[in-house]
């Protein structure tokens, strides 16, 4: 064991003399750990809150019966109540109502209202029974009374006796606050009222959302569920609380995993910085480390000392990262919400919970990655022969270990192979592995490729014409390509990640913009404050909208959620007028759609989104069953369309077919084409003047696009942040690598000064080297980054989010980034050369500096 004092001296000495490199390494690790920990904390808070809230709504129920549509006929309730094995059955009507008073301050404000049979609910969900005033016990059954949770009371800023106004579709409902729900989960914004009153008030007579079942003691749950499932048929679903948990986790899983991967990218960049820093540090200190070995430090002690150096940076970075991660999570939860702006968990107000196990995991990850990054150079330094290492000129042997063309070839080939493999459990595991392998393979190939390129350049140069500086710069890059590759690695990693992210985000944004142009052909869009498949615009209201004088054409759209798989989030069914001869006018089709002649006369066509292909195996021409009508109806998939709005799947069908099948003539949205010369503001004013005008959300196409793109940018806010971090870390890495590398060459500069080079010539030579090297790194980074972006665009995105996009190269942005990196690298090379070449010429040629 090395004495602690010696360990401390060596550690502090190294840190003190190379503060910039130490700070950069700590920052990189800190950011990687912080981002990973932040995402974990936020998501855990959201999913926990979601699960707890869902469980509190189910109470002690063993099984929940719901339909694939949001509501079903209440005649099922008495049948289930008397079903063998059922001890208690509690019917629930769940209304997601709009809150007009909050529309100015919130986007799409909603309140969940549960209609309960208090006598039944007392046995299954006792926490949801409202507490009326002492003198108004019968309020629990009153048709105008609602009971609010503390969070809802606070949100509305009301107290017992006040009233609130909510809406569904164009209908507004005023309710009296009869009391509170004192035992519901904190932060849960819900209201409860009598089920009969809810059915009447919200036009849902005879409808239920679900029935909570409590089974008799001794009944085999599994067998009961299987039997009931068979009895109820495909229009109904049986779920338990665990199913809801899985559903909640599935909802944000792809988004979460992608963010985590981005955090790991930051960590990987940090680990690479540690690696390159440690390689350069061991080269620079080669004779010093050999001296320690000569004086009696054992290999193991030296290895431990070097690992301790990097490990302590990792520990510091990880601890700072955990603290920063907690702060970031709290800030992000406050400002962006639990889904970081992606819209998965609306209406939740999750709180951050300390998670010591996760903190330990991220701490070990940060520290482990740091130690792993320094293992190879530390091992080499500890196992090198001290006698030759004491002499100068042996530095380059260190880098021989870094030349690994075979490893490079294996990694690159495996990367290409992995990119063609399918997802694992809905996640693009092989896609991510392909990215990692391409990065590692390119890094391993770098010394070889760098040597090859500069060797060719060196041979091509004519020493007589090119000038001594160019010859020296190119020859050094050719002959010391291993050392050059270490600095180059920083540029390659950061620039390739920058390029990959820039291409991916640009491709996505432009594809979304194109898609919006295609799916929003009308001039104006109307949206009712409708939720689920409750009341929308009724016939009279539809006629009033279509009857506005300046409106030339109106397309009505019915949108309802459907549950096809209880473990997955709902899909969306959109019914609208579609030209079967040319569905591409409305739908952004991704392939050839069936023509009307290809559709058998007895089948109804539907057009499925790309997510339906990935998640449910839909294909053009395939016959599928969608159980939203009774009896369940068979359809033919007439085409596949791109949908960036609903990553969990959507199908579109003719509005007329939908109405024929369901009898539901409500609509939720309308697209209006205005007559030539019509003034949009006048039309909007006419719409607002309708009796139900104040419940309409009216948007011009331009505004819808702007809002959608704003939402896109918002959901990519974290991605942009991570991209900026990657750029920052990459540039810091370039600076640190150049600075460290130039310092290892102080002796060389001293020698050049002795033989007659001026300082200016050395500056120029180093700047030229920096420029050439960065140029090569940028070119290699561009190729690698483009390769990674192709995997992100064509493999990872479709496998994660189930949508495809077209490749768009943001050339201006790429050129700007390349110039920024080139400028940063050349500036760093120049400033490092000034530091290195401005020292004492005599001292520089000595061994100890």
């Amino acid at each position, binding site marked *: 064991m090395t004495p602690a*004092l*010696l360990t401390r001296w*060596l550690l502090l*000495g190294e840190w003190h*003399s190379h503060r910039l490199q130490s700070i950069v390494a700590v920052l990189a690790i800190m950011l990687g750990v912080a981002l990973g920990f932040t995402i974990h904390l936020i998501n855990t808070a959201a999913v926990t809150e979601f699960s707890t809230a869902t469980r509190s709504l189910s109470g002690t129920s063993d099984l929940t019966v719901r339909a694939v549509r949001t509501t079903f006929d209440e005649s099922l309730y008495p049948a289930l109540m008397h079903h063998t094995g059922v001890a208690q059955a509690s019917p629930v009507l769940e209304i997601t109502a709009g809150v007009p008073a909050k529309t100015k301050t919130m986007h799409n404000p909603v309140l969940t209202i549960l209609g309960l049979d208090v006598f039944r609910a007392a046995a299954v969900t006792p926490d949801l029974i409202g507490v009326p005033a002492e003198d108004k016990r019968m309020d629990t059954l009153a048709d105008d009374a609602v009971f609010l949770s503390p969070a809802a009371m606070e949100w509305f800023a009301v107290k017992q006796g006040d009233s609130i106004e909510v809406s569904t579709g164009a209908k507004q409902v005023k309710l009296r606050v009869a009391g509170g729900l004192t035992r519901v989960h904190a932060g849960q914004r819900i209201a409860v009222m009598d089920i009969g009153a809810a059915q009447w008030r919200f036009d849902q007579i005879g409808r239920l959302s679900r029935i909570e079942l409590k089974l008799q003691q001794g009944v085999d749950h599994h067998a009961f569920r299987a039997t009931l499932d068979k009895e109820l048929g495909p229009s109904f679903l049986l779920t338990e609380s665990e199913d809801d948990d899985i559903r909640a986790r599935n909802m944000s899983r792809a988004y979460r995993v992608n963010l985590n991967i981005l955090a790991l990218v930051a960590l990987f960049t940090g680990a690479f910085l540690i690696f390159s820093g440690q390689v350069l540090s061991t080269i620079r200190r080669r004779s010093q480390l050999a*001296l320690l070995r000569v004086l*009696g430090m054992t*290999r193991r002690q030296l290895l431990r000392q070097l690992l301790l150096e990097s490990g302590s940076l990792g520990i510091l970075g990880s601890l700072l990262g955990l603290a920063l991660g907690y702060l970031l999570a709290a800030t992000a939860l406050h400002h962006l919400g639990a889904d970081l702006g992606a819209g998965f968990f609306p209406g939740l107000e999750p709180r951050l919970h300390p998670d010591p196990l996760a903190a330990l995991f991220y701490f070990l990850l940060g520290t482990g990655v740091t130690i792993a990054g320094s293992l190879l150079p530390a091992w080499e330094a500890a196992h090198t*022969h001290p006698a030759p290492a004491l002499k100068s000129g042996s530095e380059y042997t260190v880098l021989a270990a870094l030349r690994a063309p075979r490893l490079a070839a294996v990694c690159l080939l495996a990367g290409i192979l992995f990119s063609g493999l399918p997802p694992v459990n809905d996640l693009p595991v092989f896609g991510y592995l392909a990215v990692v392998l391409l990065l590692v393979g390119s890094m391993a190939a770098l010394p070889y490729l760098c040597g090859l390129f500069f060797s060719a350049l060196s041979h091509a140069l004519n020493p007589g014409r090119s000038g001594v500086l160019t010859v020296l710069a190119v020859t050094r890059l050719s002959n010391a390509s291993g050392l050059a590759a270490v600095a180059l690695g920083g540029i390659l990693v950061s620039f390739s990640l920058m390029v990959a992210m820039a291409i991916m985000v640009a491709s996505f944004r432009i594809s979304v913009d194109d898609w919006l142009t295609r799916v929003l052909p009308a001039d104006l869009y109307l949206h009712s404050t409708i939720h689920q498949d409750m009341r929308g615009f009724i016939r009279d209201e539809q006629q009033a909208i279509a009857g506005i004088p300046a409106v030339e054409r109106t397309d009505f759209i019915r949108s309802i959620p459907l549950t096809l798989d209880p473990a997955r989030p709902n899909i969306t069914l959109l019914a609208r007028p579609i030209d079967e001869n040319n569905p591409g006018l409305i739908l952004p089709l991704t392939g050839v759609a069936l023509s009307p002649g290809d559709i058998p006369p007895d089948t109804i066509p539907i057009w499925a989104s790309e997510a339906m292909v990935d998640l449910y195996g839909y294909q053009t021409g395939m016959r599928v069953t969608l159980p939203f009508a009774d009896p369940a109806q068979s359809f033919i998939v007439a085409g596949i369309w791109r949908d960036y709005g609903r990553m969990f799947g959507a199908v579109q069908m003719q509005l007329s077919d939908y109405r024929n099948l369901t009898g539901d003539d409500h609509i939720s949205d309308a697209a209006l084409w205005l007559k030539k010369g019509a003034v949009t503001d006048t039309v909007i004013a006419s719409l607002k003047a309708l009796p139900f005008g104040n419940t309409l959300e009216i948007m011009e196409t331009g505004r819808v696009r702007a809002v959608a793109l704003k939402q896109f940018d918002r959901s990519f806010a974290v991605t942009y942040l991570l991209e900026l971090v990657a750029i920052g870390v990459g540039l810091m890495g370039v600076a640190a690598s150049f600075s460290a590398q130039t310092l290892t060459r102080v002796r060389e500069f001293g020698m050049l000064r002795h033989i007659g080079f001026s300082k200016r010539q050395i500056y120029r030579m180093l700047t030229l080297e920096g420029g050439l090297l960065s140029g090569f790194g940028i070119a290699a980074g561009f190729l690698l980054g483009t390769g990674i972006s192709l995997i992100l665009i064509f493999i990872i995105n479709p496998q994660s989010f189930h949508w495809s996009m077209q490749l768009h190269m943001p050339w201006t942005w790429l050129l700007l980034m390349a110039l920024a990196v080139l400028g940063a690298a050349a500036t760093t090379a120049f400033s490092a050369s000034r530091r290195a070449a401005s020292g004492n010429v005599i001292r520089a040629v000595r061994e*100890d500096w």
Partner: protein
Amino acid sequence: MSLTPVLELHKISKTYAGRQVLSGLSYRFTAGEYIAIMGESGAGKSTLLNLIAGLDSPDSGEIRIEGEVLPVEDEAATLLRRRHLGFIFQAFHVLPHLTLLQNVSLPLLLNRLPLDRAPAMLAAVGLQGREQDFPHQLSGGELQRVAVARALVHHPRLILADEPTGNLDQDTAGEILRLIRTEIKTSGASAIIVTHSHTAAETADKILKLDSYGLAPFHSAQPENRQ
């Protein structure tokens, strides 16, 4: 002066890249002796020092320090080197980010010895009051003084010096050679100095020449240099 051998070389052979550098070399170094080894470039002087220091191992033969066989295994050789040997290099080799006192304390820390000898040793080599200075504040001669102090601070039995004045001007070299001899003699350690310089060699008790036949007396050192 004791005649007990501090270092015994027994039939040492070493080949580098197919070239026989040392062949069956044997010699006994008496305790307390200060010996200079001279020889042509490539004669194997530095190889011999590396073998004695345990930094390299002979192809055949045996090396004993204070009667203890120098182990081939790196860990054990390191421990023996740490305890019994002190080194002075041509290129000084001081750690730039440690103070002079810390540099001199290194062998004491590695051997878990009290650190109070370090300031005294620095004072002995004429660097009193400079304990907290860093190497970049020193001249070449001063750096070599630090190296001498570090080589002797833990009372090693044998000092190995490889061209200790090779990087110094003539006046400073003479000053350092006198210091090395004085301090080695004061400490009672034995010393082997490898050098090309006759001036440096003549400060030793005995000069040996290393060639393909082995080690042989070169000529006696000047009587006025002996104590």
